[in-house]
């Protein structure tokens, strides 16, 4: 809650009304409840913001920040509120700035293959827009139909195609950012290359709203691959699947997607939204290849033969667009399917060197058994990034304790294998206390100094990334 007098509060409300107009300010308790949570099972307690503000321009956000800075009001930026790290829960109340009305495409430069958007634009909308014009924006978090550009920048999102094409961070060229003081900065340039000064653009990627509010972003685009096709290879053991992956990569084949899905996930999907997955296998590889017809055919033949070498029991190839869409929908629904099992799901997100993947998966199953938990796995196998989905009931204190213990073990295991505790979902509030295990001590010191430099009053998205006690 904001610590201000009634008189000040009145003044603040009036000022916001002047900047945004009444219809863009939500203060009723009913509204504030709806902006108190995101997609993460953080807590059964509610942390209400005092204001939910819906600006439409950079200038408006700057004006808001000047007031927030003056009165030291905490500010949490929110896109679609779909992150998986409790990264936009307003633990200290204050202001939630919602970017949903900042959804304009500002400039599309087809000649230079760049696009500039406001950060409330939905990732999938931008993707569809550029594809209509023959270009391609590859980063594809699996909830791209709803998540925002701002959220994907702030969480350094990536997706299945990251294996071949990289993630959000690899396409961003320039950002407009409003700082805690209300100052507006531009971090980069429209040009494809830029070696001019420190790379502030990348500093804000993955900053989770703790350094500033990104209001506009420019991305580079690439030509759209002519075609894609999808192949599913099933294996009786995770080891075989992992060996097939290594062999594909060692043979210099670069599929656009190289994902893995385990038996429990397949079974859950088939139970709730049947897509024709063959569930009597330990793992399946989701492999997408792209290029012209010849390239696709060649890659498919190579991949098929490698998978057979590693005793793949069955290989499915999508023959129609419809089938492709259906299988992709199944892949993207893995979180949702698991969500049907128990009231809550945590989607963890460790990344390990690729060679350690099979061992990490094995350890995950052991930990699940040890703590008697329901854990299923999907992952971007090509990147060594994998998501154990833990289905549980947050209201059951004893079970939640087991979950927390299991997560800690999983993290330490990943770190032991030379990995990190997050590959694409970020740290937010739920992983903050583990950051110190996963980041070099001195690097952490400088990270905190950077935070203080940009946010002297500590008002930007409090309680995230670093380990603070939640009051």
């Amino acid at each position, binding site marked *: 809650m904001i610590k201000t007098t009634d008189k000040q509060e009145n003044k603040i409300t009036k000022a916001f009304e002047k900047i945004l107009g009444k219809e863009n300010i939500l203060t009723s308790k009913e509204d504030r409840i*709806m902006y108190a949570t995101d997609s993460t099972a953080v807590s059964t307690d509610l942390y209400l913001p005092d204001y939910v503000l819906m600006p439409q321009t950079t200038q408006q956000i700057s004006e808001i920040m000047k007031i927030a800075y003056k009165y030291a009001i905490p500010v949490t930026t929110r896109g679609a*509120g779909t992150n998986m790290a409790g990264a936009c829960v307003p633990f200290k109340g204050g202001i939630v700035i919602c970017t949903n009305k900042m959804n304009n495409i500002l400039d599309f430069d087809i000649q230079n293959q760049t696009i500039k958007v406001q950060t409330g634009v939905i990732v999938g909308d931008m993707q569809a827009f550029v594809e209509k014009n023959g270009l391609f924006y590859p980063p594809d978090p699996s909830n791209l139909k709803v998540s925002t550009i701002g959220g994907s920048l702030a969480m350094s999102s990536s997706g299945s195609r990251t294996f071949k094409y990289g993630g959000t961070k690899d396409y961003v060229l320039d950002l407009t950012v409003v700082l805690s003081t209300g100052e507006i900065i531009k971090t980069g340039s429209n040009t494809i290359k830029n070696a001019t000064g420190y790379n502030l653009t990348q500093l804000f990627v993955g900053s989770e709203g703790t350094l500033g509010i990104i209001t506009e972003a420019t991305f580079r685009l690439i030509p759209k691959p002519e075609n894609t096709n999808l192949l599913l290879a099933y294996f009786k053991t995770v080891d075989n699947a992992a060996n097939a992956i290594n062999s594909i990569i060692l043979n210099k084949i670069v599929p656009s997607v190289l994902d893995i899905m385990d038996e429990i996930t397949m079974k859950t999907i088939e139970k709730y939204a049947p897509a024709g997955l063959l569930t009597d296998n330990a793992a399946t590889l989701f492999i997408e290849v792209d290029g012209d017809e010849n390239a696709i055919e060649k890659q498919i033949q190579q991949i098929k033969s490698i998978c057979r070498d590693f005793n793949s029991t069955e290989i499915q190839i999508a023959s129609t667009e419809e089938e492709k869409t259906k299988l992709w929908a199944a892949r993207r629904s893995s979180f949702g399917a698991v969500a049907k099992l128990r009231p809550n799901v945590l989607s963890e997100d460790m990344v390990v060197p690729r060679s350690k993947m099979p061992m990490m998966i094995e350890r995950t199953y052991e930990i699940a058994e040890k703590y008697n938990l329901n854990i299923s796995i999907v992952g971007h196998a090509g990147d060594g990034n994998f998501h154990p989905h833990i289905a549980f009931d947050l209201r059951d204190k004893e079970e939640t304790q087991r979950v927390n213990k299991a997560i800690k073990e999983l993290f330490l295991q990943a770190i032991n294998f030379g990995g990190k505790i997050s590959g694409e979902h970020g740290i937010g509030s739920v992983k903050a206390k583990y950051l110190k295990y996963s980041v070099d001590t001195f690097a952490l010191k400088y990270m905190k100094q950077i935070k203080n430099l940009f946010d002297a009053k500590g008002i930007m998205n409090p309680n995230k990334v670093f380990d603070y006690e939640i009051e």
Partner: protein
Amino acid sequence: MKLNDYKEEIYKCSGCGQCQGVCPVYEALKKECAVSRGKFKLLNAILNNDAKYSKKVLEYMDLCLHCNKCSLFCPSGINAQKIIETAQFDMLKNGIKNQKKLFPARILANKKLMKFAKIFIDIIRNFKILEMINLFNCPNNKLSRYFLKIKVKPQAEKKPSAKTIKALYFKGCINNYVNPSNQNAIKNILQNTPAEIIEADFNCCGLPLKSAGDFECFKEIARENIKTALEKDFDYLIFDCASCKSTFLSYAEYIDGKEKEKAEELTPKIISIYELLDIINYKPALKCDKIAVHYPCHADIKEKSAIKKLLSDCNIVETEDTCCGAAGSFLFDNNKISKEISSKKAESIIRSDANCVVTTCPSCILGLKQGLIKQKSDIEVCQLIELLN
């Protein structure tokens, strides 16, 4: 039925936000209160005593087209419509109600009153429906222009056929009180087919009551309609409106005991006129160019596939499968949002270069026209059954 019965289901909302991607009201409003995720967070807080029912809560529950799109996409499989209605019902019991929505719904459900023409006219004056009535009509004068593009196949000499199928016809409020053009079309089409139309004195289907959370009145209507139907001897209960049909199909969920059994007995006989036409193998003498089909949110797969078959000789253009924005009284209660949703639908129709758009629900006709008028388009909107006629 009380909200508490849905406590677990509401809690199961993971907040994944997938519903934002499909909810037409969210698309227009960009606020959590529009979409099921926000609504569930709020209801969850109420169930946990972190908040109380209020006018505002009702206002937010009413901000819903009952289009069911979110439920279809919800990974947790939560039935939003039922939960929202139940919350409205809970509030109604606690004296929190939206008269603007409830009053016309109750009037519509009062047969005697509805037949009393004067009162009817007064009500529609009150609710500004009068200007809307002409929106229900197919613009015959304009339509003639469009019909020039339709090639009518030479028809074989019609022989009156023996009547072997008894079709009990639920006419619905629009046919009964506003404009009987659908009814006329159906009678005409079925004239020379084996299907015979049987009429009965039905009440309103009850959808306006259901979507206002007035379960008590809704159940009464449901029972009455079931009784009216079962008094007749028929093979099918046919509908020209997808929403009325879906409401009849939902009766069994809302009533208990013997009456539930009766509702279940009725259920397999409930079909749309288009399914009936498919059953009797009706081949429309129709071949038209660039026609868009708007499937009402309440149209089920069976109805859709029957329609596709009927129009298999027509060149159907693709439009986005979004809501028309009308959703009964939503159009009046939240006109600004409704217009925005309609307008978006209209954009997609205009982009498709359609000559005409057909649909199977009178409320959708309003939504489609509202959008096309806003977009200053003169694309015709028409009930499919009238086009077939």
